[in-house]
């Protein structure tokens, strides 16, 4: 067992599951001989051949539609969208079909597909390559949305996503694709798709985040610990459905909550969590719920992306304001 990166863990899970499940195919642009522009599918073509590893023409709407068709036949397609900035043409298929196929046929036809895409900013990529619009999918009934934040969780959650009988949008925080390595045991064990991960227990305040922002969130928690503030850090991980139990229980203990996300603020996942806390956990709150988010602007091109994305300082500041609230 060697230490591997998040993108290697994605690759490992794909390998593992393709080996186990002959009904699994992968499709997308450049996923074959090129192994994907981030190398998430590297080695699959060599191992499983061009019948199961399908380089498609350049048409995301078609990739999603074809995946819906394959899944309707009981295959387990895992489609890669090269960057989240190019995921928008898939929305029609995901909203109008993937999310509804089971419901509108009362279970006669189902849609066990995964739509994978690297997402988020921070790698100095070109325009349209740094999107975080997970909220658009999280709004859609019938979909699941999953975001891993470490190699271990990438492996376990991706296995779960592929095996899950519902359509799953699986977003990979590309900023941390290679940021850290972890020992990931290739044991084929999946993680639950409806449970948060408490990364750091704490008693003073609850920090909820997901994806790459957990990096800064955990750094902030460390820094705050040095200043005597004991923050609990929760990785949301499954964006839809949301495991509110864990969050409510934590906020019930701490009485304070800061939610950290990279995405724009309005109508985002942080809004939903804050709203649910305001409905179900209001009386345990000692202070307003703060959200540290991307601005409600277009994700700027990369010279300014560092200003757009929440950094440790912004998180620390929000926590302190929340702690100081009387």
């Amino acid at each position, binding site marked *: 067992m060697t230490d591997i990166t998040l993108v290697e863990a994605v690759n490992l899970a794909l390998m593992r599951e393709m080996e186990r499940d002959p009904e699994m195919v992968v499709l997308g642009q450049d996923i074959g001989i090129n192994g994907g522009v981030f190398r998430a599918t590297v080695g699959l073509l060599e191992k499983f051949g061009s019948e199961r590893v399908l380089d498609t023409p350049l048409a995301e709407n078609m990739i999603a539609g074809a995946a*819906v*068709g*394959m899944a309707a036949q009981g295959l387990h397609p895992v489609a890669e969208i090269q960057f989240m900035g190019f995921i928008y043409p898939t929305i029609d298929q995901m909203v109008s079909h993937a999310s509804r196929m089971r419901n509108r046929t009362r279970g006669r036809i189902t849609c066990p597909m995964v739509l994978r895409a690297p997402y988020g900013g921070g790698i100095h990529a070109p325009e349209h390559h740094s999107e975080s619009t997970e909220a658009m999918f999280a709004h859609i009934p019938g979909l699941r949305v999953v975001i891993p934040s470490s190699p271990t969780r990438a492996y376990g959650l991706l296995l779960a996503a592929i095996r899950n009988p519902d359509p799953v949008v699986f977003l990979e925080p590309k900023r941390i694709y290679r940021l850290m390595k972890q020992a990931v045991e290739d044991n084929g064990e999946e993680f639950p798709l409806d449970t948060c991960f408490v990364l750091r227990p704490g008693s003073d305040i609850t920090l909820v985040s997901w994806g790459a922002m957990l990096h800064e969130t955990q750094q902030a928690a460390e820094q705050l610990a040095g200043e005597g503030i004991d923050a609990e850090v929760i990785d949301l991980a499954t964006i839809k459905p949301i495991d509110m139990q864990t969050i409510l229980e934590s906020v019930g203990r701490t009485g304070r909550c800061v939610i950290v996300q990279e995405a724009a603020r309005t109508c985002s996942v942080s809004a939903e969590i804050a709203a649910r806390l305001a409905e179900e956990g209001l009386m345990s709150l000692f202070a307003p719920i703060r959200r540290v988010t991307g601005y409600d602007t277009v994700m700027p091109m990369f010279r300014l992306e560092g200003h757009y994305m929440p950094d440790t300082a912004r998180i620390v500041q929000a926590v302190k304001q929340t702690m100081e609230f009387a």
Partner: protein
Amino acid sequence: MKQAITFSVESHRFLGPDGQPEGDLPPLAEDKDALHALYRNMVLTRLYDERAIALQRTGQIGTFASSLGQEAIGAGVGHAMRPEDIIIPSFRENGALLFRRFRIRDLLLYWGGDERGMANPELGDDFPICVPISTHTTQAAGVAFAVKYRKQPRVVVCLLGDGGTSKGDFYEAINLAGIWHLPLVFVINNNQWAISVPRAIQTQSETLAQKAIAAGIPGLQIDGNDALAVRHYVAEAIETARNGGGPTLIEALSYRLCHHTTADDATRYRSDEELQAHWKLEPVARLKRFMIGRDMWSEAQESELIRQCKEEIEQEVRHYLDSEPPKPTSMFDSLYAELPDELRAQRQSLVGKESNND
């Protein structure tokens, strides 16, 4: 230096509007059982459409799309398919669905606003009706891939309208079908209207069949009011696909003799002359004349057929009207394979409520 590649798109029919053969006929023309089956489906479809419109007028179903005048397409396609083939329909192909395992009660449930209409397990892999235009075309490619992947001797048939050919989905689908060499036949019901938008302002291409050239796949045009031509050429394309010959695009030229749906008033945008002119080309009378001309059909058989069809329809209508109202909680029960915890409370608030819409 100059080089040129040429392409051609053929146009076919066997029977003229008067039911008279125009040239050689295929063996099918001698196959009385086949012709009777085609004809029965067309008559049943026409009577079903009529009955469904009446149900809509009396508030017993919602908006309904008739296939009046286009019955030969559904019949020809339905008859050409084997049971194990897979249909991926648009919302107008009533006849094709009736040739498959869709029952009239299923269709009425669907148009009556009830998901159970597409739920009948006997439908197998056939797709539910698709309302968003042409989104099913790329799905059809995915289904065809699955069939090919599993090396099953099955063919996928995807039906769409002339309007549907304007959508990028359609083009992406035929392109994928070509490059992946899929066992997939696209049949365009060119009824010359997309609600109020005439074919002439949908695209400048001389035919819809030639759109196949963009994908490098065979395309042909047939007279969609000639059930023989539809049955023959669709079957040919299906068998080509079954034998590994890849996809075909077929444009079946017909005409929408009805309003777009029960929510539409076609007199707003098209002339009665145009409509009347097309009544002369309609498919049911055409096939009947052909069969009568060949002593394969009689007015007595006709009356008996109509009686039978009506009886069948009434029985189905009764089944539909007698169906239990759907449970309000059912909107949760097939959403996910297992209801996520976070939805339990929402579902719970509907438990015990009767449907107030019935």
